[in-house]
C-alpha cells in the first residue's frame, strides 16, 4: 500500500518539447507509465492542442485535470512561463473526475451539483475526502455553484478550487479534462481513500479608512456606495490614478487595493477584486457584495503577504498534526503574486520553512480561490476568495 507523487516542470521554448520533458521527469520519478492521476498547471503559451497527446504518449493516465495559469507555483518559487505536471500513483487514494461545459449559459447551482455528482460516480469508492475544482466563469456567481456541490456531496464536505487564470488578459483561460482542453468550463476532481488532509487559507489585507455601506448592487455590479457611484471610493483614495482602472482589467492598481466586506458569520473580511469600471461609475467585481454590507478599501504589502502564507502553512501543519505532507497544492491569487513581484519566491521559501524543505509543492496563481476561511473547522462556510493563498496538503 503506497502513494507515489512526482512533479515535473519545463520551460523549453517549444511547448511540445516542454510537455515531453516535464512528463519524462514525472515518469522517471514514478518509475511507471501507468498513472492514476495527472494534474496540469500550464501558462497560456504551453496550452497547445498537442498537450494531452504528448502526455498520453508517455503515460496512460486514468484521470487528468488541470488549468491554465498566469503563474506556476513550485517548490523553488513562482514562474509565469512553463508547464508543471503532477503525477500521482496510489493504492490508498481514489480519484473521480468530471467536467461541465459552457457554464455561462447554465444555472450555477445545477452546474455545481452535476459536476460533483459526475465526479462522485467516477470515484467508484464510498470514501470521499475532498472536492477540488478548476473553472472559468463560476466566479461571477459562485455561491449557488458551491451550494450545488455541497448538495451533491454533503453540507460539511470540503469544497476547494481555483479559478483559471492567464497573463491578466482574461483571454486564454483553459481547463484540462482527460484528453480535452476546455474553455468556459468547470472541471472537478474528487479525492477519496485513506489519507489525511491539511488546509490553510489566508489573505493579508487590512481595511483602510472609515467604513462605507453598499447601497445598490446588481449581481456582481456594485452600483453605489454611500449613495454615490461606487467608483468614488477609488477616486477618493487613488485620486487621478483611479482613471487607470478603466479597461485595464486586473493588471493594475485594482490588484493592490481590492474591496473588502465584513462577514458577521465568519468575523473576517472577504475580498473582492474589481475587474472593470463602467461608464456610470459602477464597479464590476469578481462575485457580488451584498447590499447593506460594510465595505472598505483594503491594503497589503509584501511582508503581510509573506506572513499570511506562513500562517496558512502553519494551519496546514497543525491540521496534519505534524505528519509530513506528500504533496502541497497551492492556489494563490495572481494579484498577490503581482504585489510580491520578484520576491514571490521568498513566500514559497517561507512556506517550506514551516512545512519542511523537501515538501513537494505545486500549484497555480488564480483569479479566485474557493475554500473556507482559515481551516477545515470552518468548512460549513465556503467562499470564493480573492487575493488569498489556499494550501491543501495530502499526507
Amino acid at each position, binding site marked *: 500500500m503506497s502513494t507515489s507523487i512526482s512533479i515535473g516542470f519545463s520551460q523549453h521554448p517549444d511547448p511540445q518539447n516542454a510537455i515531453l520533458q516535464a512528463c519524462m521527469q514525472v515518469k522517471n520519478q514514478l518509475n511507471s507509465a501507468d498513472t492514476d492521476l495527472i494534474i496540469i498547471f500550464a501558462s497560456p503559451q504551453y496550452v497547445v492542442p498537442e498537450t494531452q497527446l504528448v502526455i498520453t504518449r508517455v503515460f496512460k493516465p486514468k484521470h487528468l485535470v488541470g488549468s491554465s495559469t498566469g503563474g506556476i507555483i513550485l517548490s523553488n518559487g513562482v514562474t509565469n512561463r512553463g508547464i508543471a505536471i503532477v503525477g500521482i500513483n496510489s493504492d490508498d487514494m481514489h480519484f473521480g473526475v468530471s467536467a461541465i461545459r459552457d457554464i455561462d449559459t447554465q444555472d450555477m447551482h445545477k452546474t455545481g451539483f452535476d459536476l460533483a455528482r459526475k465526479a462522485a460516480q467516477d470515484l467508484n469508492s464510498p470514501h470521499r475526502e475532498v472536492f477540488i475544482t478548476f473553472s472559468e466563469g463560476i466566479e461571477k456567481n459562485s455561491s449557488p455553484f458551491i451550494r450545488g456541490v455541497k448538495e451533491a456531496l454533503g453540507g460539511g464536505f470540503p469544497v476547494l478550487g481555483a479559478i483559471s487564470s492567464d497573463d491578466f488578459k482574461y483571454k486564454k483561460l483553459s481547463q484540462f479534462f482527460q484528453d480535452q482542453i476546455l474553455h468556459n468550463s468547470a472541471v472537478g476532481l474528487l479525492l477519496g481513500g485513506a489519507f489525511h488532509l491539511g488546509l490553510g487559507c489566508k489573505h493579508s489585507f487590512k481595511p483602510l*479608512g*472609515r467604513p462605507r455601506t453598499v447601497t445598490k448592487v446588481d449581481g456582481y455590479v456594485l452600483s453605489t456606495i454611500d449613495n454615490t457611484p461606487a467608483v468614488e471610493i477609488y477616486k477618493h483614495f487613488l*485620486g487621478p490614478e483611479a482613471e487607470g482602472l478603466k479597461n485595464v482589467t486586473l493588471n493594475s492598481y485594482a490588484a*493592490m*487595493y481590492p474591496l473588502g466586506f465584513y462577514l458577521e458569520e465568519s468575523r473576517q473580511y472577504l475580498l473582492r477584486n474589481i475587474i472593470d469600471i463602467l461608464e456610470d461609475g459602477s464597479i464590476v467585481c469578481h462575485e457580488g457584495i451584498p447590499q447593506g454590507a460594510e465595505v472598505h*478599501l483594503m491594503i497589503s504589502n509584501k511582508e503581510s503577504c509573506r506572513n499570511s502564507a506562513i500562517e496558512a502553512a502553519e494551519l496546514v501543519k497543525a491540521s496534519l498534526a505534524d505528519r509530513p505532507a506528500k504533496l502541497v497544492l497551492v492556489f494563490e491569487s495572481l494579484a498577490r503574486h503581482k504585489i510580491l*513581484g520578484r520576491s514571490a519566491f521568498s513566500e514559497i521559501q517561507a512556506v517550506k520553512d514551516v512545512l519542511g524543505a523537501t515538501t513537494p509543492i505545486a500549484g497555480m496563481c488564480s483569479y479566485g480561490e474557493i475554500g473556507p476561511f482559515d481551516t477545515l473547522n470552518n468548512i460549513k462556510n465556503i467562499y470564493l476568495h480573492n487575493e488569498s493563498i489556499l494550501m491543501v496538503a495530502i499526507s
Partner: protein
Amino acid sequence: MDTTTLGTLWTLGIIIFILLCATTYLFYAFSTKEETINGMKEAHKKLMRSFNDLDDQAKMIVRTDLELNKIREEMDKRLNGLNALQRTSRQMSQALNESEIFQRISPSLFEDLGFARVLIASVDDSNILKIHLNLGYKDTRAETILKEIAGEESIKTAIHSLSSINCPNKTKEKIMRIFESEHFIISPILTQTGSIGFVFAGNRYNAPAVTQGDEELITILAGQIGQSIENAQLFEKVFRSSQELELKVADRTKQLAGALQKVNDISNKKSEFVSAVSHELRTPLTSIKGYAAILIAGKIGEVPAAVKERLVKINSHSDNLVSLINDLLDIARIESGRQEMKFATYKIKNIVDNVTDLLAPQINTHGVKLHLRLAHPIEEIYVDASHAERVLINLLSNAVKFTPPNGTITVAVAPILDDGYAVFSVSDTGIGIPASDVQKLFSEFFRVDNEINQNVKGTGLGLVLAKNIVQAHRGKMWVQSQVRVGTTFYFTLPSSAKAFEEHLNLEKNDT
C-alpha cells in the same frame, strides 16, 4: 380659620411645594439632557472628524503606497529585463552564425519587458530585409510592415538615428500606424559596416507607456545583436582560414606520409635483401670455417706451418665475417619487426652485473677502471634481457676499446623518469668523437676515422644494432662526446610493462 380650611391650605401648600419641586426638577433635568445631547453631538462631530481624518490618513497611505508600488514595479521590470537580457546575450554570444543568433532571442525576453508586439529584421546578402522574430503579428502583416518601411525614408532615418521616445511626432505617428502600436521602441542593429536591421518592440492600445528604461534595454539588445553578428562573421572568417589551413596541412601530411612509406618500403626491401644475402653467405661460410678447422686440426694430414698460419687467418676472418653477418641479420630482423622479443621484468643490477662479469677479463687486460653508479639498485626494468645485455655489451666494449689504460669507465643508471623509463649511461674517459662524426655514429657501417679504429677491426654495425634494440623497447639512445675528454652514451629502457604499453599506444596514436 377652622381646621378644615387650615387643612386645605396645608394641602394646597404641599401641592404647590411639590409642583415647585417638580418644576425645578424638570427644569434641571431638561437642562442636563440638552447638555447630554450637546455633548453627544460634540462627540459625534469628533467621531466624524476622526473618521474623516482616518480617511485622509488612509488616502495618504494609499497614495504613498501607490508611488512606492510604481517604483517597485518599474524596478522589478528593469531587473527582469536585465536578467532576461543577460540570459539572451549569453545565449547569443555562444551562437556561431547569424541565423542561430536570432534563433536564440527568446520571445520571453520581450514578454518580461511587457511588450506584446515584436519584429526583428535584418538585411540579407541581397540587401533585402528579412524577418527573424515576429511576436504578435500575422506573417502576412509582418511582411507588409517591411514593405511599408522600405518606402518610408523618414522611418528608415528614425530607425537608424533617433530615440523612439523623442522622435518627431509625424514620424512617431507613421510608425504607430504601420506597426499598429500606440507605444513602441525601435532601435537599429548596428555593426561596423553600419545599420543592418532593426528591433521593434511595442504594444497596442490601453497598455502602459514605454519608459526611458525600456528604450535603454532594447537599445542594448540591438547593440548586442550587432556585436554578436560581427563576432559570428569574424569567427566564420577564422574558421574558414583554419579549415583551409587544415586542408593544406592534411595535403602536405599525405604527401609526407607517401614519401615516408616509400622510404619504409625501400628500407624493408634493403632489410630483406640484407637478410637474404646474409643467409646465402652464412652457409658457404660455415663450410669454409669447417674445412679450415679440419685442416688446422690435421685430421686429413699435417699441413705445413705456413699453410697452417694462413688457415688460422682464414678461420679468424671467417669468424669476423660470421659476426658481421649475424649483426646484419639481427638489424634486419629488428627493423622488419620479425625479431621476437621476450619481455619480462628483471632487476637492473642483475643485468649490469651479468655484462660486467662477462667483460671483466677484457677490462682487466686493458687496465681501465670500471665504476658502477646505480641510483636505485633494486629497481627493475621490463625488457628482453638478452637484447638489453647486448646493448650494454656493445657500449661497454666500445668504451673499453677507446679508453686508454688507467682510464675510467662508468656505468650509471639514473632514477626512473616520469614516463616510467630508466636512463642508462656508459661514460668513458677515452679519445672522444669529433662533433662532425657524432651525428653519423648510428649509421650502418660508419666507423670514426681514428688511430684505434685503424688498428682494431670492427663492422660499424654495433651501435646501429644497439639503437635498434633500444627502439624496439620504445626507448631512446643518444650520445655526448668531447674529443680527448670522453664520450657518454645514454639510452632508456622501460621500467614496467605499463610504461612500455603506454609508449606503444602513444606511438600508435601518433601514427
